[in-house]
């Protein structure tokens, strides 16, 4: 690894867990000692060769890493059809949808469950939105013989039935959460409540780059395997770095994982695509960065969807995985310093991208990366043909076929 330069963007967070003014440890006193314990354990694990070797072994032989870098040739050609002559950038996918369990979530989950074992914890809890993180956690717990409880908003339980059943098959207990809007944020509240009550034996496996320090850093570090691989693979395939990276942002773990290793490469542009739901100018979206403002929720200061009185407002997205009113604090910082541009893609744009990807590439993407693809579809035709776009195809769409069918008016 390169040593970070003094002016590197890859040095965060600081000792207080802050990225600029974002992040921190805004938790109740009951949780504070445990947060510090996780931080200490993680700091030790970072330099523990045996820990790192075991995690890498699991990534290689259990997850199936490295995930391929795929030149989406048919999609590229398709997008060039409607572009001006000479226009239409090359589109590459980083194929994390091929991971065991079907998404990038497993990368950080395996790291965290290994850490939990090292800490002597005997019970694992997690929250999940789309169910991908829940499935990944249930999977790791089955592999490592730990009991697993997954909190999931009742609304999400309804719209993500296949994943609910998967978690049950894997031996996890899924607890539907009915408070609030019964989606991801409410599941996270319930996870934190469980943790407070069971601090002595329980590890909370957070699915994204949010929550109190050290979670945003730890999840980012584990997910950075995506960007590290992609960097090498792109150099091998094209002999140079891509011109732009594109990734969907809910909490933002797949995006941080792709972006982080490239943050100091000034010529690489980055786009985080938030769920614009029914439109950024409606009240039904999940675009915390584009339409929210800074606040404190779930242990960190970050951009949030909230009303004038500081009450958190409900997010909306066709994708359960993006349906969250906050975003990881490092994204808030990257947004404020302008290193990453955050844009939106609507439900309809994501649905169209979902279908296009299925037909052009024979890959059914999850609805989350379909949002990233929607931005690629807008962007590629505006760029010359020698430009390279790299998108994180962070999950597969098997879990979404029922939702998509319903939106397309089909019964399956």
């Amino acid at each position: 690894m390169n040593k970070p330069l003094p002016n590197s963007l890859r040095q965060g967070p600081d000792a207080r867990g802050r990225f600029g003014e974002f992040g921190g440890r805004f938790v109740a006193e009951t949780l504070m000692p445990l947060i510090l314990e996780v931080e200490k354990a993680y700091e030790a694990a970072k330099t523990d060769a045996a820990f790192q070797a075991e995690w890498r072994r699991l990534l290689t032989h259990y997850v199936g890493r490295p995930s391929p870098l795929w030149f989406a040739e048919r999609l590229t050609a398709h997008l060039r059809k409607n572009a001006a002559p000479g226009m239409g950038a090359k589109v590459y996918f980083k194929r994390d949808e091929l991971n065991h369990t079907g998404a990038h979530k497993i990368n950080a989950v395996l790291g965290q469950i290994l850490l939990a074992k090292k800490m002597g914890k005997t019970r694992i809890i997690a929250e999940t939105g789309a169910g991908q993180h829940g499935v990944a956690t249930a999977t790791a717990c089955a592999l490592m013989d730990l009991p697993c409880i997954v909190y999931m908003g009742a609304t999400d339980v309804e719209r993500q039935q296949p994943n609910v059943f998967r978690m049950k098959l894997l031996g996890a207990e899924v607890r539907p959460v009915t408070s609030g809007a019964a989606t991801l944020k409410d599941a996270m509240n319930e996870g934190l409540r469980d943790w407070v009550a069971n601090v002595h034996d329980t590890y909370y496996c957070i699915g994204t780059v949010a929550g109190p320090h050290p979670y945003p850093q730890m999840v980012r570090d584990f997910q950075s395997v995506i960007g590290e691989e992609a960097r090498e693979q792109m150099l091998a395939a094209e002999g140079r770095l891509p011109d732009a990276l594109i990734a969907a942002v809910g909490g933002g773990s797949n995006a941080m994982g792709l972006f982080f290793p490239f943050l100091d490469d000034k010529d690489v542009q980055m786009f985080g695509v938030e769920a614009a739901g029914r439109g950024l100018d409606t009240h039904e979206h999940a675009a915390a960065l584009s339409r929210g403002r800074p606040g404190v929720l779930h242990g960190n200061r970050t951009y949030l969807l909230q009303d004038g009185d500081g009450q958190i407002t409900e997010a909306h997205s066709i994708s359960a995985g993006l349906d969250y009113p906050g975003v990881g604090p490092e994204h808030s910082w990257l947004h404020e310093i302008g290193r990453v541009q955050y844009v939106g893609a609507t439900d309809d744009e994501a649905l169209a991208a979902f279908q296009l990807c299925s037909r052009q590439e024979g890959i059914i993407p999850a609805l989350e990366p379909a949002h990233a693809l929607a931005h690629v579809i807008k962007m590629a035709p505006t760029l010359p043909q020698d430009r390279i776009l790299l998108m994180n195809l962070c999950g597969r769409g098997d879990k979404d076929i029922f939702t998509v069918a319903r939106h397309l008016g089909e019964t399956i």
Partner: protein
Amino acid sequence: MSRIAARFAALKAEGRGALVTFLTGFDPDRATSLRILQGLPGAGADVIEIGVPFTDPMADGPSIQKAGQRGLRAGATVPGILDLVRELRATEKDTPVVLMGYYNPMLAYGVARFCADAAAAGVDGLIVVDVPPEEADEIEPDARAHGLDLIRLIAPTTDEARLPRVLGATTGFIYYVSITGITGTRSADYASLAPAIAALKRHTDLPVAIGFGIRSPEQAAIAASVADGAVVGTALVDTLAATLDAEGRATADTAPKVLAQVRGLSQAIRAAKKAAA
């Protein structure tokens, strides 16, 4: 001397512990909430805690979560809660008032403005659940500048190494969490309270109130004699909730039943002999 310090000093002289009551502001509506708050001192509450509703109360159990939702439906906002305190203060001069809530609504209002307006409204102390000592500089300077105590929770998980840091960031009184967990979900283990409070007292001169898991007059009496006070919240909120009609509206029973329960708790505390001080 602040109202909080004066109250605990007076009770110490009296030889008994304090009854600290918690109810969420605007639960189930502003008028009923005000009526209950105005009745609390007469019913025997020594310190009044008012919950500031928040959509995502991560440290609260189902009862107080629902109370917060009722409060929000009834239109509770930060200015609304401050206004409620102002109206309470018009008639109640001596009983300390503590606001308990989460950071984001205070942040949205503006921390400096919040502390200034809270003090002006007659608030004496703040419990900001999700601002631990590590983040204290977020709110401490403004709270200090306006004479507001920052009351902190000490949990069973707070170890000896961490204790001085938490105590150092606390003024007013210590809120000792008697269980590991969220509000109102478990009962305190009284056998372990006395040694825990004794250990705590070795490190601080501040009054200690015990909370989370105190429901009955008997439990309150024990807690108030083992320590300097007992906090009762969920049990009162449950009583309030049980009086509401099918649409969650107040009935003629709401304020009387809550206040009757406060009277029962207060009588038990007053009857209890304070453990040898």
